[in-house]
Structures are given as structure tokens and as C-alpha cells.
């Protein structure tokens, strides 16, 4: 029973850390829903600020969703084949290739964004379109897709599976789409959710790349924090929370599906 006080102390500490992270979230939700945050919730609850955010920023919300979905599509097309190559041909060359792809994550987004602007800034049409932001997001999220898919592919015996399929007469395309992809579906799904979440929340690259006509959600958030009243900034933050919570829940659910240790804990 000597361990009991230690348990209580550690629990209290952990709850305190949790409060540090969650209290401001609750405060901002309250601020976004109250008539006047300075007075407090007493001033009455309202959806007025959320409505105002919608009328001001609905375009950026749709733009963010569009870019995030396009980013998932692009990282799937580019990343899944790369993960397959890395899984089937582990070696010095592929290792170097992997290292290269991770660079946009290892280097601050600001550097990547400056480089893109200095190199492609003169191409006005491209510079002003949402595709410019998409490029930044794809560079930043591709390593996460590759790693997620590679983690699953490395754990299964792809060579044997493919050999079996080949001995039954399957060509490469039908092996890839009929055997490799279905076996890696968990990694692909986890990677897609990760890419979606990262793209919706990306700010460091996007802030440099955006134009007045291509504002994503985080860019709009920075705008609202800097220039609008606290209640509107908070309401916009609520909109952001509402968008990412389903993604986070899906990711946690997927992680538990795959990890038996976590699954055991869920059996109450």
C-alpha cells in the first residue's frame, strides 16, 4: 500500500497537464459561444459569432477541404508506389531516397515556402492558384504517407505473397492492385487520415504561399486572431475543432484496431 500516495501524486500531475492543454480549449469554445466574453457566459449564449465566421470565411473552409482531399489523392499516387519500392528493395539507394523525401519535414516550412516563392513566384498563374499551396502541402505530407504505408508493408511478407500470385499467372498490375494494396490497406488508411489532418492544419508553409484569394482555414484563423474581436476568433477556432475532431477520433480508432495491447485495454 506504500505505492498509493505515489499513484495519487502521479495522477494529480497528469490531470494537471491535461488541464493545461484542455482548459484553454474549453475557454475558447465558451468565448466563441458567448455574447460578450469579457462579461462572461452570463451575457448569454449565441451562435452569432459562428454565423459571422461562416459568412466571412466559408470560402476558406471549402478551399481547405479541397486542398486536403487533393493532397490525399496526390500523396496516395506518389507515396504508395514509393513505399512499395522501399519495402521490396531495402538498400543504400532507397535509403538515400527516403532521407531526401523527409527533408521538407526536417527543414522548417518557412524555408520550403521561401524556396518555392523564389523559384516559381514569377509564374503568376501558378503562384496565384490553389495548386501552389497544394504543392507545399504534398511536399510536407508525403513522408507521413510513405512511412505509414511502409510500416505495414515491412511487417508482411510481400515477396512470398507476390510470388504466390505470380505463380498463378498474375501480372504486375494485378499483383500490385490485387495483393499489395489490399494487404497494406490499414497503412494506407492511416496515412490518408494523417495527411488529411496535417493538410487542414498546415500554417507555416501556407502563410507564405497564400494570396488574398487562396486563404485556407489556418490562414483565416491568423487573420481573425489579429484583426477581429476575440469572440469571432474563438468561434472560428470552434469551426476548426469541429473539423478535426472526427479525423482524430478515426485515427485513434484505427490505431486501436491494429494494436492488440490497446484493444485489450478497451475490454472493460
Amino acid at each position, binding site marked *: 500500500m506504500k505505492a498509493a500516495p505515489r499513484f495519487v501524486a502521479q495522477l494529480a500531475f497528469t490531470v494537471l497537464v491535461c488541464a493545461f492543454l*484542455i482548459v*484553454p480549449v474549453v475557454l475558447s469554445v465558451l468565448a466563441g459561444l458567448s455574447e460578450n466574453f469579457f462579461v462572461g457566459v452570463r451575457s448569454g449564449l449565441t451562435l452569432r459569432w459562428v454565423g459571422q465566421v461562416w459568412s466571412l470565411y466559408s470560402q476558406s473552409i471549402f478551399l481547405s477541404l479541397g486542398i486536403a482531399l487533393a493532397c490525399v489523392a496526390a500523396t496516395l499516387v506518389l507515396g504508395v508506389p*514509393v513505399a512499395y519500392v522501399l519495402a521490396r528493395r531495402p538498400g543504400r539507394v532507397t535509403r538515400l531516397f527516403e532521407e531526401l*523525401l523527409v527533408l521538407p519535414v526536417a527543414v522548417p516550412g518557412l524555408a520550403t515556402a*521561401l524556396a518555392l516563392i523564389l523559384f516559381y513566384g514569377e509564374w503568376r498563374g501558378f503562384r496565384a492558384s490553389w495548386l501552389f499551396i497544394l504543392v507545399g502541402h504534398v511536399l510536407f505530407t508525403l513522408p507521413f504517407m510513405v512511412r505509414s504505408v511502409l510500416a505495414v508493408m515491412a511487417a508482411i511478407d510481400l515477396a512470398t505473397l507476390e510470388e504466390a500470385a505470380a505463380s498463378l499467372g498474375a501480372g504486375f498490375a494485378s499483383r500490385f492492385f490485387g495483393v499489395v494494396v489490399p494487404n497494406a490497406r490499414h497503412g494506407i488508411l492511416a496515412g490518408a487520415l494523417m495527411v488529411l489532418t496535417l493538410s487542414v492544419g498546415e500554417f*507555416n508553409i501556407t502563410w507564405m504561399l497564400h494570396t488574398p484569394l487562396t486563404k485556407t482555414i489556418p490562414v483565416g484563423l491568423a487573420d481573425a486572431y489579429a484583426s477581429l474581436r476575440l469572440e469571432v476568433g474563438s468561434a472560428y477556432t470552434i469551426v476548426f475543432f469541429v473539423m478535426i475532431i472526427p479525423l482524430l477520433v478515426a485515427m485513434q480508432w484505427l490505431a486501436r484496431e491494429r494494436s492488440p495491447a490497446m484493444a485489450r485495454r478497451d475490454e472493460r
Partner: protein
Amino acid sequence: MAAVARGDVRMGLLALPALTVFGAFWLLPMARLVSVGASGPRGAAAYLAIVTDRNYFASLASTVVLSIAVTFATLVVSGIAGMFLQRNDFFGRNVLVSLLTFPLAFPGVVVGFMVIMLAGRQGLIGSITDRLFGSKLVFAYSIAGLFVGYLYFSIPRVILTVMAAVEKLDRALEEAARSLGANPWQVLRDVVLPGLRPALISAGAICFATSMGAFGTAFTLATNINVLPITIYTEFTNYANFGIAAALSIVLGIITWTALALARTLAGATVAAAA
């Protein structure tokens, strides 16, 4: 032989789209960035400006000190919480884990806003101190605000890493130490911490690199302390000093990349030695 060659061609073709995109949109632009860095009025000496120019060096120094402090604080806080959550099963544990990992997806700007909610002019801490002592404590817009913000986005990541590493620890080793008469502190110092070392090193490096490059949080807080990313941004946008902005961002990129690479070597060596 021919089959092997055909397989190699196929692998090359599969990697080609990603390689093309990466080359066209990252390698080439980065090469340009490196040359722009040397094209300003200072020439290639711009790359040394970060240590020779007093303002840039002050910016670099405060960013490094801040990032190191955040890294150590995060490792301690997340180490305790992560170890506790992985080792104990109790009612509400899963909810705690979910709440602790929720801020993972917040962009830096939102983290900055969370700090304003806590310690800003209309923040919680200010109104509590106002009521208790009659004066508002507001620190969101100082280096303390940055520290709190960086801590905020670092804790969730490191907790997850610690939990995964604790799960893999061999508890028999701790039992053995205990049966040999080691007290809890000795077990922690001599068995648990060495076992967690690789995870702590790599999580710490990620934390440091993220803090060095963090832009959104400082941007929202609009502090009077210029961390390096804000300095770069100001040089680029307000003064159009493309050369200096490029040089500083390359140096910053080299620092974060080196920190990550170094940690991987260290952590990897430890793993190999343990195996």
C-alpha cells in the same frame, strides 16, 4: 539476370513520379534558395551574418535557448505523465489519453491563441490574479508566453512516444533490480531511464527541431522577442531582404536537420548496443 534488370526498371518507374515532384518542387527551389542566399549585398558572407550580425545572432541565441528549455521541460513533464498512463489502468484513463493527444493536430496559430486564452489580456490567469491580488498577470506576449505555447504543442507528441517506449520496456529487469534491493529512484535511474534513452533522445530532437522552426505560435502572439523564424519572415516580407532571408532560413534548416540526424545516430547506436 534479365528478370532482375526488368524488376529494377519497374522499381525505378514506380519511384519516378515522387522523385520528379520532389526534384522539381523541392530540390531545384532549394538550390535556388542557397544561391539567392549568397546574392545579396553581403554576398556569401550573408551565411555568416547569423553569427557576425548582432541582431541576427541575438535572434538565433534566444531561439536556441528557448528551444532547449522547452525540450527539457517537455521531456520531464511528458516522461512522468506518459510513464504513469502506460503503467496504470484506471477509470477514465483512455479519456485522459485522448484529451492529452487532442492538441496534436493544432496548427501553431491555434496554439498561440490557446496561450492568449490562458495568459492574454482577457485570459484566465489574468482574471484569477486580478481577483486575488488586484493586478492582472499577463505574460502571453513575452518570452514566457512563447515558452508556454511551445510546451503546449510539444507535450502531446512526446507523451505518445514515451508511452510507446514504456510499453516495450522489459519489466523483468525492474523486478530483478527491486529484488536486489534497489529503491524506486534507483530503479528509475539505472533501469527505466536507460531503457527509455533512445526514445527520449529522438523525441527530444523532434521537439527541439519543431521549436526552432515554429512560426505560427510566435506569429499569433506577436511578441517583442524575435525568434529566428519571425526574423526571417520580417526580413523577407517587410524589408524584402531576400538574400538574408534565404541565408538565414538555410542556416535554420541545417540546424534542425543536424539535430534530427544527430539524435538518430545517437539513439540508433544505443539501440544497437542494447541488442
